[in-house]
């Protein structure tokens, strides 16, 4: 199995690559993890991962700046329906629009805008940095065997914005941060994680293994 992690100059790409390699090794999955900026490799991959760190508009522009990459991503995910995982801003890019700094059109896979978090409790810090537990809104194969809820495993978050998804069926998990904020979205072969699985130790490695086995 060939897994393409898209390199468009954004994100902690080495960490993501190493975490996918380790998850595959520990789960006994024969996967070649390839960090790539080549559209042909992305278009032909069996699974596609889009990381991303920074501002929405910058990441969107960065993705478009790699010639042919946006088209390759659409071919792999929309046309060929390959399993896709967006991470952090990579997840946010799945939305209709990003409203950080300016209005930016997203990939349009998950309905809703990426907006600044406005926790009801003014004591809560922005960005949210650290470990939080997840509330699963709907069962999803990527969370198979992962304890969630109070007493469940923790996921690592670093973000000031979240995807305010308008179709509840596309919200897989939320976190409590002065109100429910979106932690994980999905539909069909597309999944997106606001937290960093590659930094989330037990929960992260389990989720990545599930992604590598996922047959949507």
């Amino acid at each position, binding site marked *: 199995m060939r897994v393409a992690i898209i390199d468009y100059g954004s994100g902690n790409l080495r960490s993501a690559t190493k975490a996918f390699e380790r998850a595959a090794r520990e789960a006994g999955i024969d996967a070649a993890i390839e960090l790539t900026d080549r559209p042909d490799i992305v278009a032909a991959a069996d699974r596609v991962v889009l990381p991303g760190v920074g501002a929405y508009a910058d990441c969107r522009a960065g993705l478009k700046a790699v010639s042919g990459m946006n088209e390759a991503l659409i071919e792999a995910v929309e046309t060929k329906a390959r399993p896709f995982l967006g991470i952090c801003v990579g997840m946010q890019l799945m939305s209709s629009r990003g409203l950080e700094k300016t209005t930016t059109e997203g990939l349009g896979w998950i309905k809703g805008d990426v907006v600044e978090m406005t926790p009801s409790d003014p004591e809560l810090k922005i960005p949210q940095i650290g470990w*939080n537990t997840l509330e699963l809104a709907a069962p999803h194969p990527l969370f198979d065997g992962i304890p969630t809820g109070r007493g469940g495993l923790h996921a690592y978050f670093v973000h000031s914005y979240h995807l305010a998804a308008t179709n509840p069926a596309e919200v897989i998990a939320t976190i409590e941060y002065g109100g429910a904020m979106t932690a994980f979205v999905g539909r069909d072969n597309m999944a997106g994680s606001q937290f960093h699985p590659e930094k989330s130790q037990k929960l992260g490695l389990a989720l990545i293994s599930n992604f590598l086995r996922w047959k949507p």
Partner: protein
Amino acid sequence: MTLKARVIPCLDVKDGRVVKGVNFLDLVDAGDPVEAAKAYDLAGADELCFLDITASSDNRETIFDVVARTADHCFMPLTVGGGVRAVGDIRKLLLAGADKVSINSAAVNNPDFVAEAADKFGNQCIVVSIDAKKVSAAGEANRWEIFTHGGRNPTGIDAIDFAGRMVERGAGELLVTSMDRDGTKVGYDLELTRAIADSVRVPVIASGGVGDLDDLVAGVKQGHATAVLAASIFHFGTYTVGEAKRYMADHGIAMRLD
């Protein structure tokens, strides 16, 4: 259910080696930062911090190799500081596997560098490290000043004002170190920590002076920090990270005990 307070061990790294070593486990090489990072990862540290104190420019590259080797083995968030002066430094650290960088003297000398860095890499990965000393006399209202060069050089800059300006420029987090307390084991300067934490919206990491686990509890409860950083109590094996986290949980602080 809720965001947990973080415990962050900090390793001083010089020329690619841990200063003074780490003694809390049977490490094959107690001076190897990667070995120490792996041990802290296993112990449940919520994040790890490397502070590069390499003086010679010849050896400045060693930290990139340390970060890269750490990222190969550890799936925990990693902040790297020390000598971060240019966008190119940040890019290299992030590519090597750091998640956040901390900016210290460059933020004092050129505050616009913080804005430039936050614009390029996002606020979430820019930590501004604030080294402050209390300068008010007894009986006066509390006043703290920014010091550079390990607490030797006063700058005349008020620490609370500086914190606010750094957040305006895009710092996503502040690492607040009391230079009066650093190395003293008498506890954080809780008034300083709280004064800054209450004046900004971003998370504050308390640092400098931890002697026992009550100091960590106080950092969160009285200092209003969302993360507590410590070095020697962990490196010398006085307490394990696990003990620290359980102790904080027993004192009513929400902690990650996965």
